[in-house]
């Protein structure tokens, strides 16, 4: 989940001419963002659950490659991307699990990275199945071209005026889905110092990056 958000946020170099659609403008906007901070509510629906379960958290992003996805406050899980590593920090267990970005992406099995460097590249991986504008909200439905993968589809919604991402939902072939709704979005604001370098002194480091 956090990876897709991250990819959508940092996807760079989307630029094309001739009256871009809202969706195109939204993609192009991602490359311009320098910092981002937002609250999220993540809901997970599973076949084995009678009702979805939800967790709240916060995300921070700083161009070009810093990203923090934090569940809970005080944090229960922090996913931190810095350089070529992804670190999963669990304060309660006092552990830091380091994964190579490549491995993390494969094991997560959600998206390829980079998500896309251009609209053309995006469409190599996804078919844009539907784009609908309702008032100031644009809803986009993407279908993965890899029909053998675990991911069955992606839906996202963004504000056509400020181009903020409002919702992202991924559905999987086993019938499960993860939906994240974003609020309190602040773009290009000042981020708290040290947000991408949490103190993990005394934590057990599990290096799974090799």
């Amino acid at each position, binding site marked *: *989940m*956090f990876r897709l958000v991250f990819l959508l946020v940092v996807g760079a170099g989307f630029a094309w001419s001739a009256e871009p659609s809202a969706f195109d403008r939204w993609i192009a906007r991602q490359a311009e963002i320098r910092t981002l901070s937002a609250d999220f509510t*993540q*809901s*997970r629906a*599973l*076949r*084995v*659950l*009678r*009702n979805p*379960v*939800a*967790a709240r958290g916060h995300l921070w992003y700083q161009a070009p490659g810093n990203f923090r*996805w934090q*569940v*809970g406050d005080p944090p*229960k*899980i922090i*996913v931190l991307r810095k350089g070529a590593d992804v670190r*999963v920090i669990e304060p309660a267990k006092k552990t830091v699990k380091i994964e190579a970005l490549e491995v993390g992406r*494969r*094991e*997560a*099995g*959600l998206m390829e990275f980079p998500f896309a460097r251009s609209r053309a590249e995006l469409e190599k991986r996804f078919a844009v199945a539907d784009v609908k504008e309702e008032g100031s909200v644009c809803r986009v439905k993407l279908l993965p071209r*890899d*029909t*053998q993968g*675990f991911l069955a589809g992606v839906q996202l919604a963004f504000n056509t005026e400020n181009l903020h991402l409002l919702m992202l939902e991924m559905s999987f072939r086993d019938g*499960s889905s993860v939906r994240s709704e974003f609020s309190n979005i602040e773009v290009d604001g000042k981020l708290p110092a040290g947000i991408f370098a949490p103190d993990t002194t005394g934590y057990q480091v599990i290096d799974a990056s*090799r």
Partner: protein
Amino acid sequence: MRAVRIALVLALLAFTALGLARISFDVDVFKILPPHLRQAEGLSLFLKHFARSDEMLVTIEAPDADTAARAAEELAAVFEKRPDLVARVTWRPRWETHPAELAELAAYLVLNAPPEKVRAAAERVAPEQIGQTLNETLERLAESVSPAEVMRLAYDPLRFSEAVEGFEKAAQGAPGEFSSEDGTFRVLYLDAAPPLRDYRDAIRWVDAVRAVAEEWNGAGQVVLGFTGEPVFLAEISRGMEADMKVSGVLALTIIAGIFWICYRRLRPLAALVAMLLLTFVFSLAAAGWFLTDLTVLGVGFAAIMIGLSVDYGYLIYQQWSEHGGTVRDLRKRCLPNIFWAASTTAAAFFLLNASSLPGLSQLGNLVGLGVVIGALVMYFLYAPLVARLKWRPPAPSGIAARFWSPPALRAGAWLTGLLVPVLIAGLVVAGGPVIDETTRALRPRFSPANDALDRLSERLSDQNNLLWVLVTGRDEDEVGRRLRELDPVLRHVGGPGSTYTSPEILWPKPENQQANLPVLQALAADSERLQSAIEQAGFAAEAFALTGGVTTEWKRWTRTPVWPSNASSEWLLRRVASRGPDGCVALGLIRPAPDREEALAGLEADGVFVVSWPQLGAELKRTVPREFVWLVSILVGVTLVLLFLGFRRVGDVLLMAGCLLTVFLALAGAMAWLGMEWNFFNMAAILLLLGTGVDYPLHMTLALRGRLGDPREAQITMGKVVFLCALSAAVGFGSISWASNYGLASLGRTCALGLAIDALVVVYLLPAAWRFFRRNA
């Protein structure tokens, strides 16, 4: 007397028939390698315990992932409709289609876990705790960022799996078993439906499966590959059969052709061919009594033996053509030559027994035996036939007369005199002899199965620097103890950055199982309460499916050690664990730091083998050349002693030794010019050339001594025999140059080249040198 003869013939027939009936093929490459080498022993164990003799791998390569996936599914469906051919086809993780089977593995992993963790898991589901446990699970399901964790918790809400460290990894199996990362390369695993009792069954099954697959792929939409044990067995056995037949028939045909060109007489030729066939049958039958399986090297014996045994036939016929006389006269004239030639040749081949390479020993025994039998057959059967039936050759043709005329002999001497230094110069100019340190000599020359396996390794996993870790023991306890002790040692010797995939998590731990079984069986008896609590916490009924399956397994097991046995578990375990009447073996993988492979391969611990094919090559390089130096020294000593005993003249013996030394230097130079490499098998050519190559100078020197007054005549008379013998022996060896086994083929080429050089040196240079030394003496 007549009754005795009939009885003898019958006994010989029975001996031959029974001996032949015992012969079979053995394609196991380790049967031709020294069994005492640690790498060979370990790799042999690996193949014995982890290579499946009834499993074929069909690989599919397509331009894109979708085509490959569709092709795998379609082809699997085609095979599923052929239960007469394929008992089971697996093309994706079995738990995807049979998720219920995962329950056994999950139950087993918990049973195997440390008892304190299992007790903690049991406490978490006690009546007063279970509600909180399930709430924590729901919370974690909401928060988790790991799909693998979500999947596990969804189907294990009571979190029994937390007792098992590395549960998710263990249950996933080996990565890349079915598909490359980009999805364009897929693998189907086929289990044979018919029993594969021998290589003929394997050939039939592999051909039938291949035909079905190729018919499906009529338009060539994807690239198919076939590999696995039965494919190798079929391919190598077929090659061995063809090697023996083709090389034997080829050698026999060419030799018959040479005889015809020289003598143009059909009856002695037919008799000679019959004698050679008789020699071959007797030799093979005799071999059947002391060995049962012919190895990939052993099959080369027929052609070599024919090429060598025919020498005695040529000698007998040439002697009788020139001198005539009775059977007794003929035998008397031929006896010294045949005796010394057969003795030295057989001695050289039998000496291969001293080699630690069993394949070469077998080849040596077969050829040595064949040469002795060939000498006896020619001496006792062919000589009487020739002398009694008075098969005389025609007068030499004009071409033959010109070939042996004094100017032609002088020209030959000059050309050989020039050629030999040029060849020897190859040692300096072309860089000297190169030793192939890889294990290529053990492999088939052309092997689609090997190519498919290489492609599979390249696409599915990075085999570079990877070593197999085999841990053996009498029982599960011993292997488990060794695995635990080995872990820190491997990580230390493997160096910083090494990665070790231990089979320990899947290995049965009888002590843990004994302690855990009562605890888990008590939980299993309470499964209704567990199910009810899960559903009350907000989970659907499906969430209990795995836990229900797990508790059923715990109820089922009554005795330890427990080995999981359903198809999904077996699929996982067969890659890492094996047990049989002779003990248990566990298999791990280690990728050491770049410079630590040799240290790991040399690790000496009881029952532990750290092995790889490159390390086998390195070990062979360390041991085999040293051994050959020792063997060659012995053979040189034995040959010199025999020659001194026979000739009793130092000058003649030194001349022959010099002649052989020249031949070896010229051979090494010629190989350098031709870019031929030495390997662990064609090094034996040195021994064989010593044994067979010494015959020609011996014959020539005997002839020169017998005709002191007319050395030119001796050169012509014996030159013909030497040329015939060398040509036929070179044909014998040369006919295995196309053998399917690379080592055997290289041995054939090296010996053929050496014999050709030997003949030139003996016919053209030795008489000149002999005359020179005689004059000066």
